[in-house]
C-alpha cells in the first residue's frame, strides 16, 4: 500500500533534459530504496547522481554500450533493468518500412544524436540499406522545431520515408512527428504501438507495458533484498506490429496481405 508499505515519489520531465537533470538530483536526494528510470537519458542522469542507490531501468537501449552495466548477465553495480531494442532493430525497422511502402527509396532516421544507442541503430540500418536499395539520412533532433525543420527539408525530394527511433525526444514530440509525416506524406515506422494508435503509419517494437511489468518484478526483488548487480539485464521479448489503415489510405498505401497477416493490431 502506498504510504504504508511503500512510498512512491515520481517525477515526469516530459522530455526536458534540464528538468530531468533536476529531478534526478531530487530523487537521489530522497535516498529511496530503489529508483525506477525510463529511457537512456534519464538513466544517464540518475547514474551521475548516484552509484549506490539501486536503480532499475526500462526502455533503455544498449545498457552495456551506454556504460550503465558491466554485462547483461551480471550487471555488477547498482543498476539493472529491461532493454528494449537490440541494435539490429535498425535494419528491422527499415525492412518493415520497405515492406509497407516498397516505393520508398530515401529514408530519414529521426534520432537523438547524443544517444549512443541511436548510433548503433543507425549503423544496423545503414548496413541493411543497400539490400533494400534505400539511401539513409540522419536527422538529429532535440525539439519540435528541429523535427519540423528536418521533415520539411527531407520532404523536398520524393520517395521519402522515415524511421523514428525510440527516445524521450521522439516520445514527447510524437504528435509533431506524426503530423509532419502526414503533412509531408512520409511513410514512417515507429518503435511503439501508441505511435500507430495516434496516427503513425506502422509501429514495430516491444510492448513497453510488458517491460514495465518485468521492471516491477525487479523492484520487488530488490525491495526484498536482491542485489541489482546480480539481476541480469533482460530484454523485452514481446514484439508487436500495428498498422494504422487510415494513415495508410491517406498516404495512398495499399498494405500488402502478407504484412496484414502478421499484424497484431490494425487501426481502422
Amino acid at each position, binding site marked *: 500500500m502506498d504510504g504504508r508499505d511503500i512510498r512512491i515519489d515520481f517525477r515526469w520531465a516530459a522530455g526536458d533534459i534540464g528538468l530531468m537533470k533536476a529531478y534526478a538530483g531530487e530523487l537521489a536526494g530522497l535516498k529511496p530504496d530503489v529508483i525506477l528510470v525510463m529511457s537512456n537519458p534519464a538513466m544517464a542522469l540518475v547514474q551521475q547522481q548516484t552509484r549506490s542507490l539501486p536503480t532499475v531501468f526500462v526502455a533503455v537501449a544498449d545498457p552495456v554500450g551506454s556504460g550503465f552495466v558491466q554485462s547483461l*548477465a551480471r550487471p555488477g553495480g547498482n543498476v539493472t533493468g529491461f532493454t528494449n531494442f537490440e541494435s539490429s532493430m535498425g535494419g528491422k525497422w527499415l525492412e518493415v518500412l520497405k515492406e509497407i511502402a516498397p516505393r520508398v527509396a530515401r529514408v530519414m532516421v529521426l534520432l537523438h544524436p547524443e544517444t549512443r544507442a541511436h548510433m548503433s541503430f543507425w549503423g544496423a540500418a545503414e548496413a541493411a540499406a543497400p539490400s533494400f536499395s534505400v539511401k539513409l539520412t540522419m536527422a538529429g533532433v532535440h525539439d519540435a522545431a528541429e523535427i519540423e525543420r528536418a521533415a520539411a527539408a527531407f520532404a523536398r525530394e520524393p520517395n521519402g520515408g522515415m524511421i523514428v527511433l525510440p527516445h524521450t525526444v521522439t516520445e514527447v514530440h510524437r504528435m509533431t512527428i506524426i503530423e509532419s509525416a502526414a503533412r509531408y506524406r512520409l511513410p514512417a515506422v515507429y518503435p511503439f504501438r501508441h505511435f500507430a494508435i495516434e496516427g503513425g503509419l506502422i509501429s514495430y517494437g516491444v510492448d513497453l507495458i510488458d517491460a514495465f511489468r518485468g521492471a516491477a518484478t525487479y523492484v520487488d526483488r530488490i525491495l526484498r533484498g536482491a542485489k541489482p548487480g546480480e539481476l541480469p539485464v533482460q530484454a523485452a521479448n514481446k514484439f508487436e506490429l500495428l498498422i494504422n489503415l487510415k494513415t495508410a489510405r491517406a498516404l495512398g498505401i495499399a498494405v500488402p496481405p502478407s504484412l496484414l497477416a502478421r499484424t497484431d493490431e490494425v487501426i481502422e
Partner: protein
Amino acid sequence: MCLVLLVNGLFGIWFSYREQKASLTRIQREQAESAAGKIGEFIKGIESEIGWTTQLPSTASLRERHFDALRLLRQVPAVAEFAWVDAAGREQLRVSRVSTDTVAGGTDLSQEPRFTEPVAHKIYYGPIYFRRESEPYMTLALAGARRDAGVSIAEVNLKFIWDVVSQIKVGKDGLAYVVDARGRLIAHPDISLVLRNTDVSQLSQVLAARAGGQGMPRVEVAQDVQGRRVLTAFAPIVPPGWMVFVELPIAEAYAPLYASLVATGLVLLAGLVLTILASLMLARKMVTPIRVLQTGAAQIGKGALDHRIEIVTGDELEALGNQFNEMAARLQESYATLERKVEERTHQLELANLAKSRFLAAASHDLRQPLHALGLFVAQLRADIDPVERRRIVARIDSAVAAMNDLFNALLDISKLDAGVLIPDPAVFAIRPLLRRMETTFAGVAHEKGLKLRVMASSAWVRSDPVLLERILLNLVSNAVRYTDRGGVFVGCHRRGDSLRIEVWDSGIGIPDDQRRNIFGEFYQLAGNEAGRRGGLGLGLAIVDRLCRLLGHPIELASIPGRGSRFAVLVPWEAARPEATEPPSPLQEIVDPFRNKLVVVIDDDALVLEGIGGLLRGWGCHVVAGESADAALARLRDRTRCPDLIISDFRLSGRENGIEAIEHLRRAFRIRIPAFLISGDTAPERLREAAAGGYHLLHKPVPPITLRAMLTRFLKDNPVVEDLVGPASVDGRL
C-alpha cells in the same frame, strides 16, 4: 496425565507429519506433472507449428515459405527466429523478429547438428544457449516427412517456459524449475540462475531423477540450487527429456508440523503446569490439614486436652479433625470426671478419716468411762467396807465390765465387717424362733423401762444368714428399746412379694429427716442423749447398715420426730419347709460335746493360759497349756492322745507365731487338728492373715460365751454349721 498428553501429542505430530508429507507430496507431484504437461504442450505446440512449415510441398516458392515463416512467428511468440534449410543443407530462408530477414542466403548448414540431427532423428532439441548474454534460447529443428522437405529450424526463447514455471506456486517460498537432459537449468523463477547457465546436474534429486526416472521415489528431501533443504518432487517432460522439479523448503513444509509441535509442546507444558498446580493445590489441601492434624494430635497427646483442631476443608479430613476434637473433648471430660472423682474420693477419705478420729475419740471415751468407774470401784474395794457395800460395788464392777465387753464386741463386729472377712452363710430357715428370742431377750429390759414390747409371731421362712440376721434384729430392737421412754416397741413381719418385711416400730424420740444418713455412722447418737443415759455405744445402726449391705437386705426407715420410728428389713421370702430345723444359736446350750476333749492352748501370757485353761477345765475339757508349740508338745509326750482342738494366741514371744505353732503341732501329729486363733490385736490385717491361713480369729478379751460357742462349733460331733471363716477347720476334723 503428562504422559497421556505427551503420547497424544507425539501421535498427533506423527500423524500430522505423515499427513502433511503425504499431502505435500501429492501437491508437489501434481504441480510438477501439471507443469511438465504445460511445458510439454508448449514444446509440442511449437513442434507442431514448426511441423506445419515442413508440410509445405517441395515445389513451394521461397516467397510462400517466407510468408509461412512470418505466420509462424506471429503465432508462436516464443520463436524469435526461423530458418528453412533445404535437403542439401543450404539455408534458404531466415526470418527474425529483430533483424532483417534473409531469403536464399545459401549458408551451408549440412554439417551442423541442427541439420544432421533432425535428418537422422526427425527432431532435434539443441542445447540451451544465450543470446545477448542473458536470453535462454534453444534450437528446435524438425525434418519433413519426405526426404526433400528440408529442415525447419526455430530458435525458441525459453523465457516463456519461465512464465509457466513462475506461475507455479508452492506454498510461500516453494518453486518449480526445469532441468534439461544434461542437468542444466532451463527455467527457474530466479531467471538470473538460468541466465548464468547454472549447472544443477550434481544436485542429488537431479542425479536421482536422471538415473532412475520413474522408478525412483518421486519425492525426497534434498538441497536445492540455493543450498536450502527442500522437499522435492519431479515430473519428466518426455519429448525433450527434461524434468520439472517442484520444491518446497523443509522449513515451510514442516511449518505446520513445527506449529503443531509447538502447540503440542505448549499443551504439554500447560498440562504439566496444570498438573503441578493441581498436585500442589491438592497437596496443600491435603498436607496442610494433615499437618494441622499432626500437630493437633501431638498437642492433645502432650496433654493439652483443651486444644482443638481447626480444619475447614469440608471433606474427610475435616471429619477426622472433628473426631479428634470429640476424642479430646471426651478425654477432657473423663479427665475432669476422674479429677472430680478423685476429689470426691479424697473428700470421702478425709471424711472417713474424720469419722475414724471421731470414732477413736468416742471409743476411747466410752472405754475410759467404765475404766474410770472400775478404778473408783477397785479403790473402794481396797478400803475395808461392809459386805453389803462390797456386793453393790462388785455388781457395779460387773456392769462396767459388761459394758466394756459389749463395746469391744461391737468394735470387733465393725472391724470384721470392714475387713470383709465376714462371709455370709445363707440358709433357709423359719423366722419364728428368731422372733421368739427377740421377745425373750428384751422382755426384761422393756419391762424395766415400763415399755410394752410386742413381737408378732410369723410362720414365714426366709433365706438369709441366721446368725447375722439375728444380730441385725438384736441391734434394731435394742436401739428401739433404748430410745423409747414411753409407749412401746413392736416387732412384726409380713410378706411383700418375694420378700419378708420385718419391721421394728417404736414410739421413741424419732429421727429428724436431716439426720437419717448420719444415724448409720459409727458412734452416732441422737442429739440430747448422753451415752451414759442411753447406755448405748452408737455402733448399733452402723453394724446394721453394714450387715444389711453384706447380706443384700434393703433397710428402710420411716420416722416422725417425737412420735417414733420404724425400721424395716427386707429378707428373701421362702416357702415353708416341712421339717423345721432349728437354726443354731450362739447361745445354744450344749455341754456334753466338750467332755473329755483334749484341747491345747498356746499363749505367752501365763495369766491368759491360766484363765482359759481354768474355763475349759470347768467345761470338762482336758487342757494342755504352753507358751509355745514346743512347750505344749513336751507336755503332750506324756499323753498318747491326739489333741481335739488347738487354741493359740496369734502373737507369741518365741520365734513362731500362732499360725506357725498350729502348723507345728499339726505336723507333729500328722493330722489337721482343728484350731483357731485368739489375738489382742484388733487390726484388720490380723484378721486377713488368719483368714488367708484358713483360721478363725477371736479377739481378746474373749468372753466365755464366745469361747464356748467356738468350742461348740469345733468340737461338735456333727458340724452342721460351717465355720464363719470357711471350711478349713471343718476339714481338719476329718
